[in-house]
């Protein structure tokens, strides 16, 4: 490496085959206790439905399994290894106490249909978390049922639709800014709404005059991320809400970027009617390599009758219970009550922070993003000069002159010991570099990141090929995605 980095060093790591390639007959990692009831003849009980053979399921020993997955794990980057500045993903530290409390026996082994009388602990967690999230968002009613952010969006738009339907007309379309996440338009389509794009203005915000022109009685809602995907707070949010409300439309807020707001400003106070939260972003539940998430949806009072059922209620004797008799409910969006284990973790995070901690978390997240912005301004192009909140978006405009694109810089960052930022998003910034440090990073880690980004910019000038060929230090490099999609190999075969 031309510019050695203090952050990373090369280190032996183990090769490992697919588990099926290690399998051989007779190896086992399981043992069942002796049966305390009479043995049965499966052929007699099941007849034609009896399964004879389990195909190529593996047979391996316990140490092989431990080594297999441990070796695989060492091929991953993780928050636990360092800064993970994926914009819009809020990769913050996942406190380990969350994992401990989620595994307490009564919570981990509680059956969703066990009697309410012996479910008061779980119900108390649902209720306490709901109350906290309502206070944090400034909203008035909530469902915890949705299993992820996109599932929350779906639920939120179902509520929007039910609200309009109850007034006699479900309306036809949803407005979505051109800077929005892909889930927003995909969700609108699932709920049967046509999607109409809303152009951003030169400051990266919703153009209020365009909204005014596009707003009419056919518009059910505007789906807005605030701060938006440029990390910019929609300063004219009150006007946006007014324009929608004047024509009977609703303001939906995608809460993906709530990490910029908690304890400082509440969506319910600035005119939002319905929003979802991502417990796996703002509230520290682990991403786990892509999930599980949890996407609670909070609403204003007018939408409460439509919430998915059941909802948690306090009964006349003071105990908690589920209420199923909800005639106007949009129905269920998931079996049981949602990703309960994530509620436990999110509540543990809220309790660990309290009011002061939640506010400081937000302040630190915004401070960190601005520190990185200052550190890289001038070295990377800043397409929008509007102040940043919790994330900052640069473009590869300066490096593209040498033929180096955002993905190349991202891949080179891997050699410097960091996970890349989010590339090529939002779509309104050609060649975007979207960086979100979160509050979890200290100045030393961010200084290393800034130094790495500066060093790469210098490499682009002196030796662009090094950057174009990156990463140089990983097990595999620049895998052939085109071939993977053209002739998909989606499973192992003997």
């Amino acid at each position: 490496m031309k510019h050695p980095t203090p952050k990373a060093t090369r280190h032996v790591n183990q090769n490992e085959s697919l588990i099926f390639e290690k399998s051989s007959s007779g190896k086992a990692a399981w043992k069942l206790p002796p049966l305390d009831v009479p043995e049965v003849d499966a052929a007699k009980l099941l007849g034609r439905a009896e399964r004879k053979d389990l195909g190529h399921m593996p047979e391996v020993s316990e140490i092989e399994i431990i080594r297999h997955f441990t070796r695989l794990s060492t091929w991953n980057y993780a928050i636990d290894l360092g800064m993970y500045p994926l914009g819009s993903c809020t990769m913050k530290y996942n406190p380990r106490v969350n994992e401990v409390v989620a595994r307490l026996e009564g919570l981990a082994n509680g059956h969703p249909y066990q009697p309410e009388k012996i479910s008061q602990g779980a119900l108390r967690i649902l209720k306490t978390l709901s109350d906290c999230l309502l206070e944090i968002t400034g909203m008035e009613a909530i469902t915890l049922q949705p299993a992820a952010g996109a599932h929350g969006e779906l639920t939120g738009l179902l509520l929007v639709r039910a609200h309009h339907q109850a007034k006699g007309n479900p309306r036809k379309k949803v407005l979505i800014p051109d800077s929005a996440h892909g889930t927003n338009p995909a969700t609108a389509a699932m709920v049967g709404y046509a999607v109409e794009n809303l152009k951003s203005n030169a400051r990266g915000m919703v153009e209020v005059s365009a909204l005014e022109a596009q707003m009419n009685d056919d518009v059910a809602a505007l789906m807005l991320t605030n701060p938006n995907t440029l990390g910019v707070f929609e300063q004219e949010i009150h006007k946006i809400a007014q324009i929608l409300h004047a024509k009977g439309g609703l303001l939906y807020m995608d809460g993906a970027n709530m990490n910029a707001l908690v304890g400082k400003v509440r969506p319910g106070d600035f005119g939002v009617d319905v929003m979802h939260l991502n417990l796996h972003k703002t509230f520290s539940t682990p991403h786990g390599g892509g999930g599980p998430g949890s996407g609670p949806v909070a609403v204003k009072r007018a939408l409460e009758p439509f919430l998915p059922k059941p909802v948690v209620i306090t009964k006349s004797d003071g105990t908690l219970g589920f209420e199923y008799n909800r005639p106007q409910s949009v129905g269920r969006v998931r079996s049981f009550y949602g990703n309960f284990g994530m509620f436990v973790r999110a509540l543990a995070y809220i309790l660990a922070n309290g009011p002061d901690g939640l506010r400081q978390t937000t302040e630190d997240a915004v401070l960190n993003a601005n520190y990185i912005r200052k550190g890289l301004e001038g070295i990377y192009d800043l397409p929008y000069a509007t102040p940043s909140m919790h994330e900052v978006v640069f473009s590869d405009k300066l490096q593209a002159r040498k033929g180096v694109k955002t993905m190349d810089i991202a891949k080179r960052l891997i050699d410097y010991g960091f996970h890349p930022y989010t590339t090529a998003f939002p779509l309104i910034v050609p060649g975007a570099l979207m960086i979100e440090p979160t509050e979890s990073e200290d100045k030393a880690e961010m200084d290393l990141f800034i130094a790495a980004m500066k060093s790469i910019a210098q490499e682009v000038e002196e030796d662009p090929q090094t950057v174009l060929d990156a990463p140089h230090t990983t097990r595999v490099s620049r895998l052939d995605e085109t071939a993977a999609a053209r002739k998909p190999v989606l499973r192992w075969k003997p």
Partner: protein
Amino acid sequence: MLKAIGARSIDDLFAPIPAEYRLNRDLTVPRQMAESEIVDWFRQRSQENGIEYTSFLGAGAYLHYRPVIVDSLISRGEFLTAYTPYQAEISQGTLQAIFEFQTMICELTGMEVANASMYDGSTAAAEAAMMAGRVTGRNSVVIAKSLHPEYREVLATYAHHQGMPLTLAGFTETGRVNLKELEQAVTPDTACVLIQSPNFFGTVEDVNAIADIAHKHGALLVVSIAEAVSLGIVEPPRQADIVAMEAQSFGVPLGFGGPYCGVIATQEKFVRQMPGRLAGQTTDRKGKRGFVLTLATREQHIRREKATSNICTNQALVALMVNIFMTVYGKVGLKELAKQNLAKTAYSAEQFSKHARILFSGAPRFNEFVVQTSEDPYVINSRLLGHKLVGGLPLKKFYPELGNAALWCCTEMTTRTAIDTAVGMLAESESEEPRGEHAVEEVAR
């Protein structure tokens, strides 16, 4: 840092937020707690959550033994605290694990491709029905009434706004789908027939016969599997076009209903209409084997409103639990495990049958069975609860036509002692005259 940025105070950084909306007070949430206090608080909640009870509940959430290495391995920070594996070079661990997961799901279900996970069994079933609509260009769905009632509710929610009509097909006295009703319900507009096997009552369906009816009319067959352990001993629905599964039984804690692990598996020819992430094998510049997320052109971040689904975050870490569980039990263990479940259920059903009526006994079943009593099952359960036993799920709410019926479940975790005690307490009431007024408490929903 403020100085470097050129700001006087933190408040400067929040200046873009209009002053009238800024919160100038503390949030009213509980005060900050020390770690020890947090653990105490949740320990109390755990104590209030039925920890000393032995349960006969199943109905889509099953108590199976979880090998300890499941949690040892998923607790590694490199799995726990990684994002979706978009940057393949530093995500090979997650990607190879998904590839192995997909392979094992295919082996077990008899399908050719499987995705990396869906939220749960209910949303997997709903998404499978939508997928069938895209594949066939048809718009309605025929659902077995023996599909998990909550899965049916979720499908109804999804289908409602797609303008997708749903028709129910009932069950016969064997608990299996009423084939005559099914045949009548299928029309030229039927995109798919959606059944569950083993179904909500534990009955194994005659998948061949149902597949014939669906296929004769050009509809797809979607089979929902809620009890994954059944795949160790019950022939998988190889005639299905789509399998929509809940894999919770494979090493995932009951967790009061989630997080669980839905999966969709199907045939290769339908893969481009499939929702959710897929890991695929490829090579790098030097020809070395590696894995990437693939066929992303189906997904929302590329296709936006034309995507096959809006799903983004899935249940990755839970799928890893399932993966490790399948690896631990493997080819032989899964079969032996399933056999123990079969034996416990056979014993239990036989004991119950001495004092009550077991419904649906004309067809094979896996680890659930329906017990009909003369006494209200809520009353029976109320009595059992006093002895730290949670009885079967009363079915009145979902199937009022079955009268005093409850769905009981046994797994390898259910001891003979627990079964005998429960049967004994049920027998007590069944041999006595009805007791007249009794404070009935709704102990199960």
